[in-house]
């Protein structure tokens, strides 16, 4: 590494360096500006992955002729092992046009990946059913004529305590002063089960003791705290849950 490279690194790490040319300084300042941008450091909410999966599952369920395979990871690992090929995730690729000359490290995938895949498959087979993912449903939720701009998605996951419903919806105003939202699940016979109340639907966790396998129709109504706990019938958000796992 040349002395000039040491100067460049020192400049980047905050030292005062006099030897750099204005051109060199400008190049490095560009990188410093990128490092200072908040967008460089933000991380998406961990629940976003489930919401993305739920949104696509809902699209698949709506699209005629399309069908999700829903193959569990264990099945994929077994299939891959049976064919003697390693299980490798999709590698992120960099944009074709890049101003900075990013050198991509070259990984020796061959033996290492095969060995890792063999270990992963062995673990999956050894653990058997104990590693199976919980039953999960998902849905897109849309606004009714009472809330035409509302939209969002939800995942419904079976747990030991009941069904956890993670709802994320936009376009519903914040309710207060005795008004609130109430979520419901309904079965084909029309039986309604309340699953929780809230003021704002941006990120809500609801719980259902009724099985989502039977109670798949989801709705949200606007309620008034007036001593009458039945549904007001003023539905603002609806959706149908589909199994994704």
């Amino acid at each position: 590494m040349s002395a000039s490279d040491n100067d460049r690194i020192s400049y980047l790490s905050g030292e005062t360096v006099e030897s750099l040319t204005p051109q060199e300084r400008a190049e490095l300042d560009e990188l410093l500006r990128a490092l200072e941008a908040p967008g460089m450091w933000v991380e998406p909410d961990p629940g976003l992955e489930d919401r993305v999966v739920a949104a696509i599952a809902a699209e698949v369920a709506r699209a005629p002729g399309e069908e999700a395979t829903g193959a569990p990871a264990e099945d994929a690992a077994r299939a891959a092992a049976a064919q003697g090929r390693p299980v490798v995730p999709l590698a992120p690729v960099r944009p074709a046009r890049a101003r900075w000359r990013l050198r991509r490290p070259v990984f020796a995938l061959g033996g290492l990946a095969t060995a890792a895949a063999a270990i992963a498959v062995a673990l999956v087979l050894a653990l058997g059913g104990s590693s199976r993912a919980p039953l999960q449903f998902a849905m897109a939720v849309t606004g009714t004529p009472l809330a035409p701009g509302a939209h969002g998605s939800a995942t419904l996951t079976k747990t030991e305590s009941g069904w956890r419903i993670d709802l994320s919806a936009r376009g519903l105003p914040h309710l207060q002063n005795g008004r609130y939202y109430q979520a419901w699940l309904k079965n084909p016979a029309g039986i309604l089960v309340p699953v929780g109340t809230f003021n704002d639907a941006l990120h809500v966790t609801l719980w259902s003791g009724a099985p989502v396998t039977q109670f798949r129709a989801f709705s949200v109504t606007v309620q008034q705290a007036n001593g009458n706990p039945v549904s007001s019938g003023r539905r603002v958000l609806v959706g149908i849950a589909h199994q994704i796992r």
Partner: protein
Amino acid sequence: MQEGDLRARFRRGDPDAVRSVYRSHGRLVYAVAYRVLGNRDLAEEATQQTFVKAWRAAQSFAEDRELAPWLAAIARRVAIDIYRREALRAADPLESVAPGDPALVASPQSAEAIYDVWEVRQAVAQLPPDEQEVVRLQHLDGFTHTQIAEKLGVAVGTVKSRSFRAHKRLASLLGHLRE
């Protein structure tokens, strides 16, 4: 799962494949959206819409194309649409609008600036955690080496050496060294 298989399963909407594509590219999509919108909730909305649009368009996606720039381009378009929607919706008095509201942002970022975010973000992600922390405290939070040392409870010399090592790696990964 080979990439070809993964793409085929993503087209079918297989949840495992969707998760795999999200895990490898979700941060990129989110970073692009955030770069345009400057708002976490809206960036999440844009990320969700981007993956749905990508799934809808996946049938026509050529096998030999790279996923990252394709997803980044969709993310940018989606984010700009949301940006315009939010800008149109901003009918509140100016003093009541938060400084970070997209309606107050001058214009969406260029595609070039967005790809820069991706390049640098990838490079930062390759740093060891202790070096990432120093770089973050130095550049995002604007702390001096002395302040970082106090915050982390280590010697200033340790912070300086971590910072030097981190920036050496970044400069090397991003082609800023002459060698």
